[in-house]
C-alpha cells in the first residue's frame, strides 16, 4: 500500500477572536509548475536554490504595460533599466520587444553596447559618469542625462576637444506630494536649480537639449504623483519653448511603478492594492495631453520602468532545511535561501508557496535563511502550511533587483534558469564555483604555505 503524505502533528489553541476552526486559511494553491515545467524537475536538474525566469511572463507583462500607455498616448518608448536585471538574456528579451537601454554606470553602458544596442538608443543616467564614460557617450551620440553641475561643466570641457554636439537632458527632482522626496539626484524644480541648469545648457550653445527626465522614487504607491511630475516637466518644456523657441523632444518619466509585491508592514496584499499600469498611464498621459502642446509637437514619452516589468516573471525555488521551535515557542523554519540572494526580503513580505500539495493546517512561522547571521530572515511572520524537511517551495515576484544586488556571501550564487516560450528551460547564468572566486585572488608567495 502506498504511504500517505506526511505532515507534522499540529495542535493549535483556538483564540476567541479566531472563529475559523483551522485558523487562517491559506488561499493559494501549491505552485507545482512554472509555465509548463514541474518545480520538482527544475530543482532536480539545476539544484536548490535556483532562480527561474519565465520568458512568457516577461513578454506578457511588457505587452500589458506597453498597451496601457500606447492606448492613451501616441508616442511611447520604454528603455530597459539595466540595474533591475542585467542578465544579457533578460535585457535582450526587452530589446527584442523594442525597449531601448537605460544605464547608470560605465559597466552597464558597456553591457548594453555588447548586447548590440544602438548607442543612440542608450540613455545614460546617474551621478557617476567618469570623463571616460562621458567621452564615449558623446562620441557614440548616446542620450546623456545630466545629474549635477559638475557633470555639466565636465561635458563643456570635453567638448573643447571633441568635435561633437551631444544630445542631453537634465534629471529634475521635485515635490510630488510623496515622501520621502528623492532630491539627491538631478536639479530641483521648486527652487529654480532646474531652470538654472537649462539656461546654462542653452547658453553654452554646444549641446542639443533634447529631453527632460525625472525618476520620482521607487515602488510608488501613488499614481497621482506621476501626474504631478509630468505636469512639472511639461511646465519646464513649455517654458523652454517660450524662452528659446526650442522644442523638447521627449519627457522621460523614469521608473518607480510598484510591482505586485507586498511591502513590509502593508496590511493588504500588494496584488490587490497596488496601482496598475493603467492607473499610472492614465495620470501621465492625461498630464501630457492636457498641457498646451500644439498637437503636432507632443513630446515622446519615455518610461524606464524596472521592477514592475520583471518582478512577476521571477521565481526563487528552494528547499526546507529544518523545522525548529524558538525559545518562546514560535515555529521557525530554516530554508536554503538567505538574504544574500534574496535582497528584496528586506523590502517585501514575499509570497511563498509550497511546491507540493498541502492541507488547510497552518502555523505562524518565521522563515530563516541558512546564513550564520542574525539578519538572515526571509519572513518574520508568515502563515505557512506545514512544510517538512526536504520539501520544495517557491518564492514569488523576485525578478527585479535580486539578480543584480545579490551578494556572494557565505555561499556561492546559484544558477539562473530561463523557461522559454515553448517551456524549454535554459541556464542563462551558471552557478558560481570555487574557481569563479579563486581566479580573482592573488596570494603572495610568503602566504601560500603554513603548518598547523
Amino acid at each position, binding site marked *: 500500500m502506498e504511504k500517505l503524505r506526511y505532515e507534522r502533528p499540529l495542535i493549535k489553541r483556538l483564540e476567541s477572536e479566531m472563529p475559523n476552526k483551522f485558523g487562517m486559511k491559506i488561499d493559494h494553491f501549491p505552485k507545482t509548475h512554472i509555465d509548463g515545467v514541474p518545480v520538482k524537475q527544475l530543482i532536480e536538474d539545476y539544484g536548490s536554490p535556483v532562480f527561474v525566469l519565465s520568458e512568457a511572463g516577461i513578454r506578457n507583462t511588457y505587452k500589458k504595460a506597453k498597451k496601457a500607455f500606447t492606448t492613451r498616448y501616441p508616442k511611447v518608448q520604454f528603455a530597459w533599466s539595466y540595474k533591475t536585471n542585467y542578465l544579457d538574456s533578460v535585457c535582450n528579451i526587452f530589446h527584442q520587444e523594442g525597449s531601448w537601454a537605460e544605464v547608470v554606470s560605465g559597466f552597464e553602458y558597456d553591457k548594453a553596447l555588447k548586447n548590440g544596442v544602438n548607442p543612440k538608443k542608450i540613455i545614460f543616467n546617474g551621478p557617476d559618469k567618469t570623463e571616460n564614460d562621458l567621452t564615449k557617450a558623446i562620441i557614440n551620440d548616446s542620450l546623456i542625462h545630466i545629474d549635477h553641475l559638475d557633470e555639466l561643466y565636465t561635458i563643456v570641457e570635453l567638448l573643447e576637444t571633441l568635435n561633437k554636439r551631444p544630445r542631453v537632458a537634465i534629471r529634475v527632482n521635485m515635490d510630488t506630494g510623496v515622501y520621502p522626496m528623492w532630491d539627491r539626484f538631478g536639479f530641483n524644480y521648486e527652487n529654480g536649480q532646474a531652470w538654472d541648469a537649462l539656461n546654462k545648457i542653452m547658453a553654452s550653445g554646444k549641446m542639443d537639449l533634447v529631453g527632460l527626465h525625472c525618476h520620482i522614487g521607487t515602488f510608488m504607491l501613488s499614481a497621482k504623483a506621476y501626474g504631478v511630475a509630468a505636469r512639472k516637466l511639461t511646465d519646464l518644456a513649455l517654458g523652454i519653448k517660450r524662452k528659446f523657441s526650442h522644442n523638447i523632444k521627449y519627457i522621460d518619466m523614469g521608473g518607480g511603478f510598484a510591482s505586485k509585491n507586498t511591502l513590509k508592514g502593508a496590511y493588504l496584499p500588494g496584488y490587490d492594492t497596488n496601482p496598475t499600469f493603467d492607473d499610472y498611464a492614465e495620470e501621465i498621459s492625461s498630464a501630457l495631453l492636457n498641457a498646451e502642446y500644439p498637437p503636432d509637437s507632443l513630446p515622446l514619452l519615455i518610461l524606464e520602468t524596472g521592477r514592475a516589468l520583471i518582478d512577476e516573471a521571477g521565481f526563487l525555488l528552494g528547499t526546507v532545511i529544518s523545522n525548529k*521551535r524558538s525559545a518562546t515557542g514560535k515555529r521557525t523554519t530554516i530554508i536554503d535561501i538567505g538574504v544574500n540572494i534574496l535582497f528584496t526580503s528586506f523590502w517585501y513580505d514575499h509570497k511563498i508557496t509550497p511546491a507540493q500539495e498541502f492541507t488547510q493546517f497552518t502555523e505562524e512561522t518565521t522563515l530563516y535563511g541558512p546564513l550564520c547571521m542574525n539578519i538572515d530572515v526571509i519572513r518574520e511572520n508568515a502563515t505557512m502550511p506545514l512544510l517538512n524537511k526536504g520539501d520544495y517551495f517557491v518564492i514569488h515576484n523576485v525578478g527585479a533587483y535580486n539578480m543584480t544586488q545579490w551578494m556572494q556571501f557565505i555561499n556561492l550564487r546559484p544558477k539562473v534558469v530561463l523557461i522559454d516560450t515553448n517551456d524549454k528551460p535554459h541556464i542563462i547564468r551558471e552557478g558560481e564555483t570555487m574557481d569563479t572566486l579563486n581566479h580573482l585572488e592573488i596570494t603572495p608567495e610568503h602566504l601560500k604555505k603554513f603548518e598547523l
Partner: protein
Amino acid sequence: MKMKSNIAVSDSGFIFNPDTGESFTVNPIGGLIINQLKEGRETQEISRLIRDKYNVQFATFEKDFDDFIGLLRNYSLIENG
C-alpha cells in the same frame, strides 16, 4: 506519558479541555497521536504506526513527535509525572 482522561478528540479534530475551558484543533496526525496516547500506547509503538502509515523518515518523525508532546505538555493536556 498519559493524556488527561477527560480530554477527547472529535472526528473533526476538535479538542476541549474541561479543566481550563480551552479549545484546540489538531490535524489528523495530531489527532491520531492523541488517541493513541489516550489508549496508553508507548512512544515506540506510536512511532511505528505513523511510519507504517505515512511516508516519513524516523529522525524527522522523532523530532516532530517530541515537539508535539512538548506542546501538549505546555497546554496541560498531558498528566504530569
